[in-house]
């Protein structure tokens, strides 16, 4: 009888451990789910990576925020797109040589958060585009590597003409095809996230490297 009681308590404890552990969801930052695996996938020739955390409020404050919003052509809105959002930058190395970066941003989608990552070379050119998470009936199409491959080779300059509000663009961006016409909102959200991602990388990494403020 005593044994049964102990058994019950242990079972109950296991259950509570489990129940309390269920919803260990991520914070508002956007990290790779499995950095070791993902870095090797985007940069097969890499030998390691270094992670750094930056935010607009720590790197440039309101001035930088206004500059980012102006370049984006849209304001930061909502309660999650704020000046203090932490961004994780993965600096990829091959031996002692820096060979690129991976960076992701969160974006509000039609039915949930979208996590948009890009792998960039040291000049800011897109090597890979990857939607880590998206809640949508059409997510499969937008997460398909075929969709992502359309962005390979593009740079921030190609996004200069993209207006997130209207979804209008010119130049190379006009060649980007939405694989799910039913999910226009999420398609546009992905492009906005990508443009924002590239602007932030320029502000945090490429411009400081070139000595620009």
């Amino acid at each position: 009888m005593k044994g049964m009681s102990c058994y019950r308590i242990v079972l109950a404890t296991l259950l509570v451990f489990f129940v309390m552990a269920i919803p260990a969801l991520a914070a508002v930052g956007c990290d790779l789910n499995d950095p070791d695996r993902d870095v090797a996938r985007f940069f097969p020739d890499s030998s390691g990576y270094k992670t750094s955390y930056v935010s607009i409020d720590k790197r440039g404050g309101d001035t930088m925020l206004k500059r980012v919003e102006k370049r984006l052509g849209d304001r930061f809105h909502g309660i999650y797109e704020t000046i203090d959002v932490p961004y994780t930058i993965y600096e990829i190395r091959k031996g002692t040589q820096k060979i690129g970066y991976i960076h992701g941003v969160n974006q509000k989608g039609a039915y949930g958060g979208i996590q948009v990552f890009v792998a960039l070379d040291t000049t800011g050119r897109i090597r890979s585009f990857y939607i880590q998470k998206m809640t949508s009936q059409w997510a499969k199409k937008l997460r398909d590597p075929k969709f992502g491959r359309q962005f390979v080779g593009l740079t921030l300059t190609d996004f200069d003409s993209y207006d997130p509000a209207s979804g209008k663009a010119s130049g190379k961006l006009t060649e980007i095809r939405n694989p799910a016409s039913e999910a226009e909102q999420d398609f546009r959200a992905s492009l906005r996230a990508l443009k924002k991602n590239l602007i932030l990388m320029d502000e945090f990494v490429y411009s400081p490297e070139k000595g620009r403020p």
Partner: protein
Amino acid sequence: MISRFQIAYKNLLRKKARTLLTLIGIMLSSWVLVSLLGFNRGYEHALNRDIDNMGYQLMVMAKGCPYEAATMMLQGGTGLRYIEQSMVDEIVKKPEVDKVTPILMQAFFDPDKGDGGGIAGYFGVEAATFPGMKPFFRFRQGGWFKDENAAEAVMGFEAAELEQREVGDMILVPEKNVKLKVVGILERTGTQDDGTIFVPLKRLQMISATDKITTIGIKVKKGADSTKLETALYLLPDVQVVSFTQVKQTIMKLIATARVMVLSIAIIALLIAMVGVINTILMSVLERLQEIGILKTMGAMPGDIFMLVWTETLILCSSGGIAGIALAFVFARLSDLLVRRVLPYAPGGELVAIDMKLALLTLAVIVAVGLLSGIYPAWKAGRVRPLESIRSE
């Protein structure tokens, strides 16, 4: 006139390196001691808070292995055992019961959550009874759903943050492709509720094509005999009862071994520091035998010499103790993080809880043990024979 404290202080400064090393030893041991005492208290408080925040003291669920709950999370609901909702009416009649709330836990597989997909967990709860179980919930935006059948959802802080949802936004239940409108976002609670999506029970039953529930949360009346109620609940067919009091005791038992081990380490660290104190003071006494002899020829009594040497111990221990406690305060959050990494289960909130009362208690222990350690060197100094010591080399 120079005071005893000033003489003792100057004596300690004569061998700065030795004094400093002894101080560091005392400081480290008091840091460890106060942090561990803080952990002993903080962990229990945090666990109590987590359990209180469950809102109910007893949970009734279908009999079977609790690993089925894990199965539910991994396989999206298949394999889970349900209980009849009518059982709620049966339980609410028990005299010990204050409040009862039925819950349906469901998990749906979202293939687009990361590379291998992920699980989205939903809690079906009654708007009429569940909020009463969680009076400490505060809304960041919006409020509870009003209609038990509404296609609405209330999101925990982290769930909303991850999904970038605000009141008025829509969410999509994976697998089922059912759309729900977000009507409330909770403030952070530091518990599992932060990652939960609450949906009206009837709506979730409809989505999951079931009229059953998985759990019944029971709040026991104040002063009522919860063991008696537990026994009565076991008479219900095919259910098991989870008592959070028992759960707490079991968790405390599980970490008791770890607590004893770390406390032993703290005591060993304290003893080592005290051996350092004895060594430092004794060396200091032996080096000053002639001075002590001269003091005695000038009229100093053994008690005066004893007090002088003891004061040195007091200064060493109290300074080291205060510095160690200050370090413990400064690095409390770091200790918290380290403890969390080591423990198999750590409740939310502050795990290493250090306050002034605990700090003063630790200081008292350090000083008391230090003074005990200082008795022998002080006694030895007090017994020095003046002429012999003056003649000695």
